[in-house]
């Protein structure tokens, strides 16, 4: 009797077993963690090959099949998200080895929490059931809160508690939405949603789920919890939270938009307006932020806004294409923001603080981390040839073709704002006339910088891979076409 493995099951179960092992054996946690990440990445590659060869693949768990049972489904988009998660996760894990090397206790808990987080995220990307999604986002929420407060400082705990409240409330709004879906349809799988007629309770369900997810995504004006939480967490945790965790809820919004009969142009405009608000407000706050990590966190708020603008860029008619722009921006932000948070953490560690105004007073210059930060900024600003640029290009192209000039204007304003706030940081990196002590020479290579640098280079280089990337995420994903 041989066990038949499926890559989808492995993508969820490997991190789960890894988390269990890492929790039971704290001393070996880091090696278990890295091995698990490597194995999970392998499973995702296996899955990607399957999807590439066969198109979307399904797995009816327990053999029951939806709607009674729960199906796992992988198509281009979900594999792209899985790949983003495991690749970024792997590199962040490597970086975590170094940045947690002096904190035994943090290290001991980092790995089980992070692997549980990975379980939850992979589960989200493969799920096709609304209630299952609710459970998954709770797994993510608890593990993410644990990571947020890993360093145990008072600010981190305060931020973590706010995050927890927002997260639970978001999940409960989602659950209430699930209740309304059940009330109306009598089933909870995506396929059931796809053919549903629009009714009052379905609109209520959608509104509840959207608001709940927006709370988890930190979409303006529900972003209040994010900057403090992401800025005060320890660097690898920040990278995971900002780069990956937010994306899980974003992905659910994309899926819901795919399967829900989207009711109106007005709603899409509203979503776009919220995104525009985030772009502007996040940009202004980033300009005013005094600390490096806070600036980076506010830039996450702005970037999330941009993703929603991309989603709304061409109205209801353009939705069949717009999601691709949003997906590209999601991938771009995931890679670049992880790199940026890791780099910011390195800079903070080396210099000893992260007050932007005084960064240039330090005689120590972590050159490579600063370089990494700059590369990540290029992608986040959206300068060519980075993936961020390609995403922004798709956004503006669609908006322009549809004559939605206001979204073009918002994007340009957001770009200028991001130039302004990132140049504050770059200026501090390159200023030398206020240093008290002689500046050390070239800092040389540090192994801790390897992971963030790789991520930043990927954020730039993936821009040139955009065409194959796009054709991959289109596999098995007939957006806007009811199944």
């Amino acid at each position, binding site marked *: 009797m041989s066990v038949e493995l499926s890559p989808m099951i492995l993508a969820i179960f490997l991190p789960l077993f890894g988390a269990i092992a890492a929790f039971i054996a704290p001393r070996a946690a880091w090696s278990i963690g890295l091995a698990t990440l490597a194995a999970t990445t392998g499973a995702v590659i296996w899955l990607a090959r399957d999807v590439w060869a066969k198109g979307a693949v399904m797995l009816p768990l327990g053999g029951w099949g939806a709607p009674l049972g729960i199906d796992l489904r992988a198509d281009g988009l979900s594999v792209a998200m899985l790949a983003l998660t495991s690749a970024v996760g792997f590199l962040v894990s490597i970086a975590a080895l170094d940045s947690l090397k002096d904190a035994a206790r943090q290290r001991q808990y980092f790995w089980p929490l992070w692997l549980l987080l990975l379980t939850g995220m992979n589960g989200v990307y493969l799920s096709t059931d609304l209630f299952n999604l609710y459970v998954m986002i709770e797994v993510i929420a608890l593990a993410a809160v644990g990571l947020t407060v890993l360093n145990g400082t008072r600010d981190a*705990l305060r931020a973590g*508690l706010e995050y*927890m409240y927002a997260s639970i409330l978001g999940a*409960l709004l989602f*659950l*209430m939405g699930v*209740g309304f879906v059940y009330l109306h349809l009598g089933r909870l799988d995506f396929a059931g949603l796809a053919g549903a007629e629009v009714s009052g309770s379905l609109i209520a369900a959608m509104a509840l789920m959207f608001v709940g997810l927006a709370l988890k995504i930190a979409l303006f004006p529900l972003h209040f919890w994010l900057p403090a939480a992401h800025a005060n967490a320890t660097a690898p945790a920040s990278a995971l939270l900002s780069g990956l965790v937010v994306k899980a809820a974003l992905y659910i919004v994309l899926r819901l938009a795919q399967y829900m009969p989207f009711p109106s142009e007005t709603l899409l405009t509203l979503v776009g307006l919220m995104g525009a608000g985030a772009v502007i407000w996040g940009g202004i706050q980033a300009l005013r932020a005094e600390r490096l990590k806070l600036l980076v966190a506010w830039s996450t708020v702005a970037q999330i806004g941009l993703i929603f603008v991309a989603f709304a860029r061409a109205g209801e008619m353009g939705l069949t294409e717009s999601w691709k722009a949003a997906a590209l921006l999601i991938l771009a932000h995931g890679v670049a923001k992880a790199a940026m948070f890791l780099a910011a953490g390195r800079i903070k560690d080396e210099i000893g603080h992260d007050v932007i105004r005084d960064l240039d007073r330090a005689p120590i210059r972590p050159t490579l981390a600063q370089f990494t930060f700059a590369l990540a900024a290029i992608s986040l600003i959206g300068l060519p040839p980075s993936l961020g640029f390609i995403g922004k290009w798709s956004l503006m192209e669609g908006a322009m073709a549809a004559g939605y000039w206001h979204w073009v204007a918002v994007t340009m304003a957001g770009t200028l704002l991001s130039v302004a706030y990132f140049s504050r940081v770059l200026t501090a990196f390159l200023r030398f006339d206020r240093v008290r002590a002689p500046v050390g020479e070239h800092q040389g290579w540090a192994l801790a910088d390897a992971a963030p640098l790789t991520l930043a280079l990927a954020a730039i280089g993936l821009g040139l891979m955009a065409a194959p990337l796009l054709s991959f995420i289109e596999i098995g994903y007939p957006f806007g076409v009811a199944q």
Partner: protein
Amino acid sequence: MTPDLIYGLCGVAVFGIGLVGALCAQDRLRRVLALKLCSVGAGFLLVVGAWRTPPATPDPVPHALVITGIVVMVSATAVALALIRRLQSLEADDER
């Protein structure tokens, strides 16, 4: 006036009350409690939804879902309470 209607409205009301608490309550403990009220409200909706016609044998699936929801909620509550305890300890240390 059937029980499902009565309790359905009751659930919606409890959810709304919880929402008010989650947004307005200032005490940390009270906010946790408010969130728990929201979850009970959502539970009501699902249990009521199980009462499809004919109401003789309610649908078991939502029942299972609500049980799952209750366990998930107690986990989340425990984490939130642990955060509150730790935070309060730290803040009390600061005052001294």
